[in-house]
């Protein structure tokens, strides 16, 4: 029995072992099959993706082939075809790379199809490339033939140049960086830039002429200050003298100055400098009377579309329309050479100080502008009782104010003729003559309200009390006005000093009691005194305080004072803060 039991126990152990082993094998087999299945699934997906890629590449290739045929059909430039050919080569290279990858994954049957596909692509590429080459060679031959037959050569495009005009700097920099830089290398760039500069800018960058970054930096410091551009633009507008009716050329120039100035400032983001009410007012004053009247009608009409607070855009539009009209009127085809040019005083003849208007030219306009005091009256300034009743200094002031000639007392004439009274050789009209002794007479000085009465063309200059005072960020040009009740600062200076202000309203009462309210800012401006102490002023921001300060020759003045050196008398120049 014992043997029977041991035999059964052994059989049981054997069976269990066998079964476990079998089970393990089965599990292993299952895992193996599962992993194979996953591999196959992955391969299937990969093939699917490659198949999609293949379709996409074939589409690109087909499109490029079509493009090439279209370009050849429409006789496009060879450069475009060269590009298409290069793109085709790239597309074929992509196809080859994909083909090689697919060869590793496919079975024998599919490999045959794949090889057939790439062979087909190669053949098509070969065909289109040979056609493109043939087309290009024909084109080149045509061009050569044309060049041979056409002796005219296009002139080479000139390099941009800069001669130190602040307003031209932004345009020059943009042109150089966009047009010149892409076609030169970094080593040549400083030399090329220097060759584009005039004498003054070239001197500015002379010490750093081997480093283009330093050159641009140096030039930006000198010419790139946007506030300077604003000053130059506003100064150009202010320096234009009031325009008379009929002076179309001057008027068009004036419009161009405004238009160009506005464009320059807008490029720098400073268009507000020119669009302020005060700037518009300056421009309005310069307009010819007829244009001024037309503009006034437009502004003051009941249903005027013009924004009274921002008149500049409307004014610019109005002026450009006027310019167009003038250009149309003055075009060669429409102008009538028989019609006398309006405003030209060269049609006048002078006989014994009396101006005679030739027959046919005695228009109402000539009559209107004869006298500097009485517009429209039919007498000349030298015959005017009012003019003759004025002291000589006042006559001079009037001539200066109206921009009239000192020799003939008429506008738009700069002919110099000697006086002739008592053999006086100075260039002025007889009515402006003074004897030397009159100039020295103290009684005359008193009668001229403190102004010197001199018989020459020198212009009296009133020196304002101005001073250059240090601030936290540099210097400010300060005008000490003892009659002022408020302190002012210009927009540009407030920005330069990084001042943070609070909103304020300024009520300005002008001569005649006319009141104007202006929205502005109130700042605290610290000025540094000689002991280095900051004294804070409450200042209000306004567009402009005065015109730019001219330089004064102060040589020799220091000698008139004790213990005063020339450096102590240096007056600031340029814009005032």
């Amino acid at each position, binding site marked *: *029995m014992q043997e029977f039991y041991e035999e*059964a*126990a052994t059989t*049981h152990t054997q*069976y269990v072992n066998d*079964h476990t082993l079998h089970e393990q094998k089965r599990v292993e087999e299952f895992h193996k099959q599962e992993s194979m299945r996953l591999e196959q699934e992955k391969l299937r997906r990969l093939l699917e993706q490659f198949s999609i890629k293949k379709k996409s590449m074939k589409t690109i290739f087909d499109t490029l082939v079509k493009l090439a045929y279209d370009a050849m059909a429409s006789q496009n430039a060879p450069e475009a075809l060269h590009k298409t050919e290069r793109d085709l080569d790239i597309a074929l290279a992509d196809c080859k790379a994909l083909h090689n990858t697919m060869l590793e994954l496919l079975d024998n049957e599919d490999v045959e199809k794949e090889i057939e596909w790439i062979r087909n692509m190669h053949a098509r590429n070969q065909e289109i490339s040979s056609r493109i080459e043939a087309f290009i060679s024909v084109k080149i031959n045509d061009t050569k033939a044309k060049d041979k037959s056409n002796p005219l050569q296009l002139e080479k495009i000139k390099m941009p140049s800069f001669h130190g005009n602040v307003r031209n700097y932004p345009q020059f920099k943009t042109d150089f960086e966009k047009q010149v830089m892409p076609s030169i290398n970094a080593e040549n760039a400083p030399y090329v830039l220097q060759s584009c500069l005039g004498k003054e800018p070239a001197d500015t960058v002379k010490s750093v002429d081997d480093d283009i970054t330093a050159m641009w930096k140096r030039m930006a410091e000198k010419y790139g200050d946007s506030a300077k551009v604003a000053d130059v633009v506003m100064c150009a507008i202010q320096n234009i003298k009031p325009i008379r009716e009929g002076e179309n050329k001057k008027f068009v120039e004036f419009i161009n100055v405004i238009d160009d100035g506005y464009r320059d400032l807008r490029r720098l983001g400073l268009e507000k400098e020119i669009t302020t009410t005060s700037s518009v007012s300056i421009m309005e004053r310069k307009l010819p009377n007829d244009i001024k009247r037309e503009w006034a009608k437009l502004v003051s009409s009941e249903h005027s579309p013009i924004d009274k607070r921002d008149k500049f855009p409307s004014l610019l539009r109005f002026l450009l329309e006027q310019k167009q009209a003038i250009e149309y009127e003055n075009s060669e085809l429409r102008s009538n050479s028989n019609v006398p040019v309006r405003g030209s005083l060269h049609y006048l003849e002078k006989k014994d100080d009396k101006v005679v208007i030739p027959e046919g030219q005695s228009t109402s306009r000539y009559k209107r502008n004869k006298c500097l005091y009485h517009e429209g009256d039919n007498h000349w300034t030298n015959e005017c009782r009012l003019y003759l009743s004025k002291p000589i200094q006042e006559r001079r002031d009037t001539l200066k104010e109206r921009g009239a000639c000192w020799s003939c007392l008429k506008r738009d004439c700069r002919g110099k003729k000697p006086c002739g009274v008592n053999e006086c050789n100075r260039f002025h009209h007889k009515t402006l003559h003074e004897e030397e002794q009159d100039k020295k007479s103290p009684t005359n000085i008193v009668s001229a309200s403190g102004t010197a009465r001199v018989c020459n063309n020198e212009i009296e200059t009133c020196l304002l009390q101005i001073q250059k005072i240090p601030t936290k960020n540099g210097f400010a040009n300060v005008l000490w006005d003892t009659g002022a009740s408020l302190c002012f600062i210009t927009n540009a200076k407030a920005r330069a000093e990084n001042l943070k202000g609070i909103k304020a309203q300024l009520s300005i009462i002008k001569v005649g009691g006319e009141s104007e309210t202006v929205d502005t800012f109130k700042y605290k401006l610290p000025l540094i005194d000689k002991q280095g102490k900051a004294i804070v002023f409450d200042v209000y921001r306004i567009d402009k305080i005065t015109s730019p300060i001219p330089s004064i020759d102060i040589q020799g003045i220091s000698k008139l004072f004790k213990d005063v050196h020339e450096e102590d008398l240096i007056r600031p120049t340029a814009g005032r803060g």
Partner: protein
Amino acid sequence: MAEEAKREEAKGIRTSAKARFTRKRNEFFKSVDENKGMEAVKRTFADLHEAWNIVEGKHDIYMIHLVEDE
């Protein structure tokens, strides 16, 4: 007489235990031969093992009676 009757009874009990063991052994080998699966083999072997324990127990009792007679 009484002792002999008890010994015979013990022997009869051992014989039936042996017969049960033999049945269980046959069942076990049948399940192995027919490869009825691990569960069936383990179950029949457990039954066989139990029957074997019983045989051993009944044999020991019979042996006690046998020794007492001598």
